[in-house]
């Protein structure tokens, strides 16, 4: 029997496979298909201080090996989450992690404070990388000073595990990662979606209401893998790999590049059972290669 358990700082995962925010709802959406408690961690929908309607339709366009989305953080706000959704999640036997977003530093801090007191939420993931909102979001994730400031302020207000999710829409990812580490993050997750665009030539109009949107899926995997590899070399805190993971081999590649754990996003839309297949596939890989623990393959890339 191989050991699939991994620790991301003080966060204990029964296996390294989590679900990426915005692609797995609140978990319940998938419970007809799988036992969601088998997943290492569920990162729920992007949550903000106040209710957000998100962007107008159309919000999605399929592209080669991926999709562009412009959802724009539609959610009912953190108070609604605490009152109505959290109680339904407390008996799910895995880590429920809330993805937090905001337009101002104060909003991030206030939202994190409200989540701090929830016993069954062991961590938050600070989204400083959403490309689909006008203010805040990605702006915090593309400047070292801004990233440092928001992470430091949330760090003071939030006592549990603080994961910071980085944007790939930067020239030097290591720089941002190091700034976030210095500011007190416990772990880094990357990547969020890549800023992209699609046009309908027939109508001469953009395909998304917001013109640009966030690209996800296998199309971004090589980029994500490179960024995870660069980041993992340059920070000491654990790194969580995200971007185009469709199967166990993809997940293992991220771990070899230095990720302690992974998140699966868009793949859930195509196969709602994919997380379970990835967990089983990782176990099979470890057995085949004679590893006893999943942590043995973290950063085991032979260059």
């Amino acid at each position, binding site marked *: 029997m191989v050991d699939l358990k991994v620790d991301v700082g003080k966060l204990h995962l029964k296996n390294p496979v989590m679900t990426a925010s915005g692609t797995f*709802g609140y978990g319940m*959406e*998938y419970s007809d298909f799988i036992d969601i408690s088998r997943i290492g961690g569920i990162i729920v929908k992007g949550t903000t201080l106040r209710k957000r309607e998100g962007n*107008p*339709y159309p919000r999605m366009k399929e*592209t080669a090996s991926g*999709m562009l989305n412009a*959802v724009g953080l539609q959610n009912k706000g953190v108070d609604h989450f605490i009152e109505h959704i959290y109680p339904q999640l407390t008996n799910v036997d895995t880590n429920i992690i809330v993805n937090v977003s905001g337009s101002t530093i104060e909003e991030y801090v206030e939202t994190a404070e409200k989540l701090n007191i929830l016993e069954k939420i062991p961590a938050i993931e600070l989204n400083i990388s959403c490309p689909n909102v006008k203010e805040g979001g990605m702006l915090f994730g593309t400047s070292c000073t801004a990233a440092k400031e928001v992470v430091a302020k949330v760090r003071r207000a939030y006592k549990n595990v603080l994961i910071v999710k980085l944007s790939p829409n930067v020239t030097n990812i290591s720089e941002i990662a190091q700034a976030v580490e210095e500011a007190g993050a416990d772990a880094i997750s990357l990547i969020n979606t890549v800023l992209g665009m699609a046009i309908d030539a027939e109508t001469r109009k953009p395909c998304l209401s917001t013109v640009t949107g966030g690209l996800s899926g296998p199309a971004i995997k090589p980029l994500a893998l490179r960024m995870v590899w660069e980041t993992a070399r340059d920070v000491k805190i654990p790194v969580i790999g995200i971007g185009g993971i469709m199967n166990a081999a993809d997940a293992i590649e991220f771990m070899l590049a230095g990720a302690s754990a992974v998140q699966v996003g868009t793949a859930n*839309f*195509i196969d709602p059972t994919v997380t379970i297949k990835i967990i089983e596939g990782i176990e099979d890989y470890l057995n085949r290669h004679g590893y006893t623990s999943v942590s043995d393959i973290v950063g085991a890339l032979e260059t």
Partner: protein
Amino acid sequence: MKKLILDLILKKNIRLNEQVYLLIFSSEKGLPEILPGQFAQVKINDSPATFLRRPFSVNFVDYENNELWLLIQVVGAGTLKLSETSPGASVNMILPLGNSFSFPDEKKDEKILLIGGGSGIAPLLFFGSWLFDAGFSPEFLIGARSSIHLVEVDEFKKYGNVYITTEDGTEGEKGFVTDHSILKKRNYDRIYSCGPTPMMKAVGAYAENNNIFCEVSLENTMGCGIGACLCCVTDTTQGRVCVCTEGTVFNIEKLKW
């Protein structure tokens, strides 16, 4: 209703015209309960240009013969690939998804009209068969560009009167569905519609002006079909909601289109 992921086997692939195919599937495990208006998210095999699943309304379910029908209009790479599926092939689907048309009350003498256009006629056949089996007398109004685009008319006739409009007048009355004379002659109690958005808007306007109960089934670009991605929104009196879970069927009173 519990959503399932099923591998269905294609029994028959019938070409109905240039662009429209009727695919008849069977399920080794039997078919789950499916309501009229619900849809399936279909995985397209071996189509590298098609990344996400594609949504299709359930066209008909025949539990006795273990059959599920999809009516496919070829518009792009995914539908083309699906139309080329050979009998015996297995196709993966997530179903049943979405809400359903709301069933009329017990009053069997209610005058019910189902209005469809294009591939939007698909869910209306299944709904019509339900209404008929439950003792109602539904009628159908089908619109097409031209007579060659009309499909499944004989199937609809099994469950009630069929009225037709074509834009070029090659069959039935010339014009759009809302131009059909039956709308002036009969006072319907309920109208249900599925088809291109401009058609449904015109139907909705007619129903509203005449104070008729009206439900429409909306199309939308779908990422997941199960309420997880929030890509498929429409604006309603209750805010911006997901068409795949709160719909696809909406009462026109709720819609802000």
